[in-house]
């Protein structure tokens, strides 16, 4: 198990390095990000040249890559065009985003396990068909459509009915108010719900299939033949085994959730990672080279770390991979 985890870490580092090459090649080699600046009337060639120098865009490619990677190793992701430290931009964004992503992953997982298990146990009944239809629908609704619907058709009527803001639709907390849990929760409910539901569709299908397979296995029959009660058979013997595959799936899909968060943040006006990336790509000077590169590196490292955690969890759940 230990060598397995070590291998995974080495593999993860390799992936992160590959990601750094990929993102650098994409962003830095694609063209001159300052071209749009040159054509705008306000900027003199001198200012542009100065920008070029401070951002090291005039260095040879290898030098640029190495100095960027060297910076990362020292924990410095560089500066944006506006002179802001990329570190502070990304880490403040990351904090905001995690407030959405982590609860969404947890609720998505719990909901998917619940729906999947109920569907499997009530296989081919009306309940199962209903859950199936629901997961298909969830799978077909893009997360931003769902988010807009929640905003317009849940939050607005609810707030109107109460004559007060019960659920917030913009931002992750009320500015100028001392941070409180209830304030944060009221801001987070809708985006977390949208994002959780986004992954619940496919996950619940996996969970259903896994549960059906486990429940048809021989050891379930053995457990019943022992004289165990149905609840014990289903939970202790069935669910315990059916959780193993879903953990892998959820871990592998973590990057997908982060992608969903990018869109959800935009709908709900959160100043998180999504906003950082979208601004860096759609701003007046785009791409904001070091912001985009730093963004992808941080996300990649984060996802790799989550995947290693999932592998560790796999070891806890399945004694066959321990050793």
């Amino acid at each position, binding site marked *: 198990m230990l060598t397995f985890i070590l291998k995974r870490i080495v593999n993860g580092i390799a992936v992160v390095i590959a990601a750094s090459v990929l993102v650098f090649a994409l962003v830095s080699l694609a063209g001159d990000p300052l071209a749009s600046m040159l054509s705008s009337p306000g900027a003199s060639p001198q200012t542009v040249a100065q920008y070029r120098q401070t951002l090291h865009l005039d260095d040879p490619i290898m030098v640029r890559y190495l100095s960027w990677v060297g910076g990362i190793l020292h924990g410095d992701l560089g500066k944006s065009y506006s002179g802001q430290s990329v570190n502070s931009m990304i880490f403040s964004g990351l904090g905001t985003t995690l407030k959405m992503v982590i609860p969404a992953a947890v609720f998505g997982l719990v909901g998917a396990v619940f729906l999947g298990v109920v569907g499997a146990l009530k296989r081919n009944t009306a309940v199962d068909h209903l859950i199936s239809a629901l997961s298909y629908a969830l799978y077909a609704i893009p997360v931003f459509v769902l988010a807009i619907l929640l905003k317009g058709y849940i939050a607005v009527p609810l707030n109107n009915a109460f004559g007060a803001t019960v659920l917030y639709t913009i931002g992750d907390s009320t500015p100028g108010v001392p941070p409180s849990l209830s304030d944060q929760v009221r801001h987070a409910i809708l985006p977390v719900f949208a994002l959780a539901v986004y992954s619940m569709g496919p996950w619940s299908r996996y969970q259903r299939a896994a549960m059906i397979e486990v429940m048809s296995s*021989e050891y379930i029959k053995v457990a*019943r033949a*022992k*004289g165990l009660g149905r609840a014990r058979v289903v939970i202790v013997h069935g669910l315990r085994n059916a959780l193993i595959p879903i953990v892998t799936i959820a871990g592998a899909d973590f990057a997908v959730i982060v992608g969903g968060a990018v869109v959800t943040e935009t709908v709900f006006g959160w100043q998180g990672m999504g906003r950082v990336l979208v601004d860096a790509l759609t701003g007046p000077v785009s791409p904001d080279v070091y912001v985009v590169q730093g963004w992808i590196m941080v996300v990649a490292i984060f996802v790799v770390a989550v995947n290693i955690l999932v592998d560790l969890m796999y070891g806890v759940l*399945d004694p066959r991979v321990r050793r």
Partner: protein
Amino acid sequence: MTTSERAPDPLLEVRDLRVTFREGTDQQVEAVDGISFEVHPGEVLAIVGESGSGKSITAHSVLGLLPPLATVAGSIRLRRRTSGRPEELIGLSSGAMRRIRGAEVAMIFQEPSTALNPVYTIGWQIKEALRAHSRVSGRTARDMVVEILRRVGIPEPEKRVGYYPHQFSGGQRQRIVIAMALIQNPDLIIADEPTTALDVTVQAEILDLLRAHRDEAGTAIVLITHNMGVVADLADRMVVMYQGCVVETGPVSEVFEQPQHPYTRNLLAAVPRVGVQSAREPVAAPDRIAVEGRDVVIEYPAGFRRASFRAVNSVSFRIAAGEVLGLVGESGSGKTSLGRAVAGLNPISSGSLVALGQELKGISRGKLRSSRKDVGFVFQDPATSFNPRIRLFDCLAEPFIVNNSTERPQLRQAVNELFDLVHLPRSFAERFPHELSGGQRQRVGIARAIALRPSLIIADEPTSALDVSVQAQILTLFTELQDELNYACLFITHDLAVVDMLAHRTAVMRRGEIVEQGATREVLLHPQHEYTQQLIGSLPVPDPAVQRDRSSRRQAVTS
């Protein structure tokens, strides 16, 4: 021993049991069609039948373990331990049924590799069985678990209680499953093909274990099996099932001696017996050698989370032209690795292996490909050896197309000839593999192997997935074809009786080494190596009197 006359009221009484399965919306399939039998205390009743006979379904219906699509009718009455009076089990509430499961009637399943929950230790699982019906303190429970593990023959039980199922061998897992059944001290054990997935030496040990428990605790056993040798070894009475019906019932000795029903007679006749068929004599002075292996080593390199593994360790053997060499061994002995190496499907690590004049060590891909038309291979599992999307015509035409040996217009003729050779109707050419039975498919598998009239055939357990009666037909076909086409053959099997029927010479493999080889008759009648003797001693003989004698002698030797 026990006879039905002596015990007037049965422990279990099944009357007119019918099980139907709903298929689709309106289709009903009768799996069990009105069968009756009874089991007396302390008796071993064997329910015998081939696949599809309904024997397993019958066993499952007793404890209400059938899938929800099944409907059970008739009567199953169990004499309850508490009241001493028979009680109807069909229609019992799930709570009441649960109190019977394990406590009064326990079940042992076929597949020990999947019967244990992989995520819990075996000690935990046995303890769970113990606590399902009785309150036992932690300390006592542990002691009882260790004790039962010791009784079923798990070495170092104090340490092993904390192990997970994957840390045990198949035979040990089956012992653990049995321990789980025994610890609740039931009145009746239903054993559904308890030894089918096991090697013959392990099978003998498991049967001894069950017998010992019956003799000591007086537990009745219902033994579901297709193996007449197992029946002869363990059972007092037997019920023969065929297509959902009971065709014959009676004491084992009577049924074996004077089978009444033609199906029973066929079934008994189809069972291959060691030393009864005249083993074929090897060619005295072979003029040509088809295969010669010298110090063959096959090693699988270390892979992801796997150490390197030596499957075949310095093996030397030869097959003369036109000779059948039977390669016998239990699972993991390396026999399949060796067979695949002879076919060029596995590379050999060191030594020399010459097949049809071609050295296979370090052979180039191109040379291997061109030499293959002289070698045929019959695979074990007819279910996976055919491309499910290709009609049998295309499947049998492929050898000719690939080797450009037959003009297109003559293909139909060539394929028809192949169907004739293996006694299948020519119309099968238009069918898909899944439209054939296992035995028919295996005939096609043989046809494919002999299509190019090779001088060497490798057959890897070609009958082990088949019912006995089908197996007999395939073996007859095989001998017939070998006589006619006179190819050399490496016939891999775990079944000594099969070797006896068709091999000129026999080699016995164990843990990667050939421990004994020679003329089949010599090896089987006068085994020299201890392991061969053990193998032959473990093989249950389908004759109750002989088998009882054998197993008591074997037990005397081992104890």
